[in-house]
């Protein structure tokens, strides 16, 4: 449904994102994982044309066969909120504090669908019920500050799916929320996606969360796609060294049993921090933080190596050499 080819986003002289190929089939949930500053949000935003004004986007993003890049604002506006919904990171800030919930949720409906006032109200009520908010009638007249964070995020989800989008882009939808609230929101997203056959591009820095939601994971480092594959395959048999270290640094995943998850155990960390834009090493961008870097890594990383639908680009992959026959 969504195909990204040779997408490049640059601001000034720096190329922030370069993704050669990423597909999102209809109804699939794909996780885009990376550290802060890895360009994952930038990628998500350029799909709907909401990248910063000074960013230059080239390449190709096709949605259901038609090109999204280079569209005029008016043409793009038809897709936004209609076929593609977007959920922003911080629900407290993504709701207009001066606007009642009812108007807020109906914003896309009033724009994209030709409904009477009564029908709009009915639709909003049913959406609020779908995102499992209690007392929808009361809620219509409430202001955002009267809701809790979890409720606010549910309202945002309701607004994003208001016009039955085929693709939902969720940019760190649970990062600003309490852990206890997180789970409910994630379950809701999965449920809505299953019920509606809605594709989800789930952007997050948290592999633990992505693993829970997505069927497929794409790992980004320094704006480059380093590994893509089915969730189980990427988590259990990660091939790229960056994914491997990322997993080792996650307490929930790295623990070998339930007890170890909570009891003192030194977590592995990834050395250093993400370099500033323009300071990435030549060749493999992860080279200077990688324990397995060899001379080969100074060369540009290999093109995506494909193995049983699991693609990665690494000279010294975790789990041994590439099974060439499987490619």
């Amino acid at each position, binding site marked *: 449904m969504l195909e990204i080819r040779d997408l490049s986003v640059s601001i000034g002289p720096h190329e922030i994102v370069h993704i050669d190929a990423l597909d999102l089939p209809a109804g699939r949930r794909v996780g885009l994982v990376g550290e802060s500053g890895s360009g994952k949000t930038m990628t998500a935003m350029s799909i709907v044309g909401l990248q910063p004004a000074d960013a230059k986007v080239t390449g190709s993003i096709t949605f259901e066969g038609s090109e999204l890049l280079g569209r005029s604002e008016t043409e793009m*506006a038809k897709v936004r909120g209609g076929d593609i919904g977007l959920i922003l990171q911080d629900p407290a800030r993504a709701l207009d504090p001066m606007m009642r919930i009812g108007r807020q949720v109906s*914003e896309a409906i009033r724009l994209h669908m030709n409904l009477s006032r009564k029908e709009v109200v009915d639709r909003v009520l049913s959406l609020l019920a779908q995102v499992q908010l209690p007392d929808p009638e009361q809620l219509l007249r409430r202001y955002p500050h009267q809701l809790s964070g979890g409720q606010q995020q549910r309202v945002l989800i309701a607004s994003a799916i208001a016009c039955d989008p085929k693709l939902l882009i969720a940019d760190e939808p649970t990062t600003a929320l309490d852990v206890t609230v997180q789970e409910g929101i994630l379950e809701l997203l999965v449920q809505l996606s299953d019920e509606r056959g809605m594709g989800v591009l789930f952007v997050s820095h948290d592999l633990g969360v992505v693993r829970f939601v997505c069927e497929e994971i794409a790992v980004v480092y320094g704006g480059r796609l380093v590994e893509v594959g089915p969730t189980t395959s990427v988590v259990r048999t990660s091939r790229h060294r960056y994914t491997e270290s990322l997993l080792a640094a996650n307490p929930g995943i790295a623990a070998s049993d339930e007890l170890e998850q909570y009891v003192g155990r030194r977590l592995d960390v990834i050395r250093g921090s993400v370099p500033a834009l323009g300071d990435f090493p030549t060749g493999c961008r992860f080279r200077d933080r990688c324990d397995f870097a060899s001379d080969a890594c100074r060369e540009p990383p290999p093109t995506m190596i494909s193995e049983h639908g699991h693609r990665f680009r690494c000279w010294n992959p975790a789990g041994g050499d590439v099974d060439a026959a499987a490619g």
Partner: protein
Amino acid sequence: MPDDSAIQPDASLADLKRVFRAVVRLPFPLFLGAFLVLSFVFIALLSFFWTPYDPAAINVPDRLLPPGSDNYIFGTDRLGRDVVTQLMLGARNSLYVSVLSTTVAVTIGALFGLFVAGTGPRWQGPLSRIADVGLSLPGILVAFVLATKLGPGNTTATLAIIVWFIPVAARVTIGPATQVLALDYVEAAFAYGRSRRFVLMNHVLPNIGPLLIVLASVMFAAAILIEAALSFLGVGVQPPTSSWGRFLNEAQPLLEAAPYLMFFPGIAIVLTVLGFNLLGDGLRTILDPQQARTGIF
């Protein structure tokens, strides 16, 4: 848009009680401000139908009577005209000029400010400088230039105040509007497919609304003072039309003989200015959903 009638099908007695209770709980400054402003508006309107004396009647034998004299509560001026009558006529002119000029200036200035904020980084700089140029023009000077061109009068005073206030309103709008435009909920609105113009009018404007209300209330007050100043300087309203400023102007040479002539228009100006300020402050409080204790609007 949620339809109220869909949620509250019938306005029953309980609803009326609820509204009454909500009104009672409104902030006190709002009541006081509204009371003061409405009183002066009422006095101004009343002057069209009734004044204690014929405004044009000159009664020289009764001139310069002190306040409390028989038949003249506030006394008479140097031509024996009733001070109460003059003040009522003055209210008409002062309110007319200040309300008209402020409304026009805030509307134009805010729309220009929103436009500038929405143009994006490349045009915002040059356009903001235009507002700054307007801001640097001394308002009194503008009024004098206009007066030489159009002749002194109400129109001149109103125009001068409008020209004076538009850049102020624009400048005050540009900054906060730019800030609001960078917020997440604006981005969310774009993500729903909304156009820049819709976002500016439906998200940015309501969010800087409280600011504009405060600005307008301060400007109403300033406009009354400026109108008084312009009339005092002879650029504003001309005889026989009355205005508080002109009243002050006429009272000035008589400061020793009849100081009370200065007192009454001065008090009228102070109370109106206070009224507008309180009203603006109260409105800002109840229009901000996070500050409002009640939700009747």
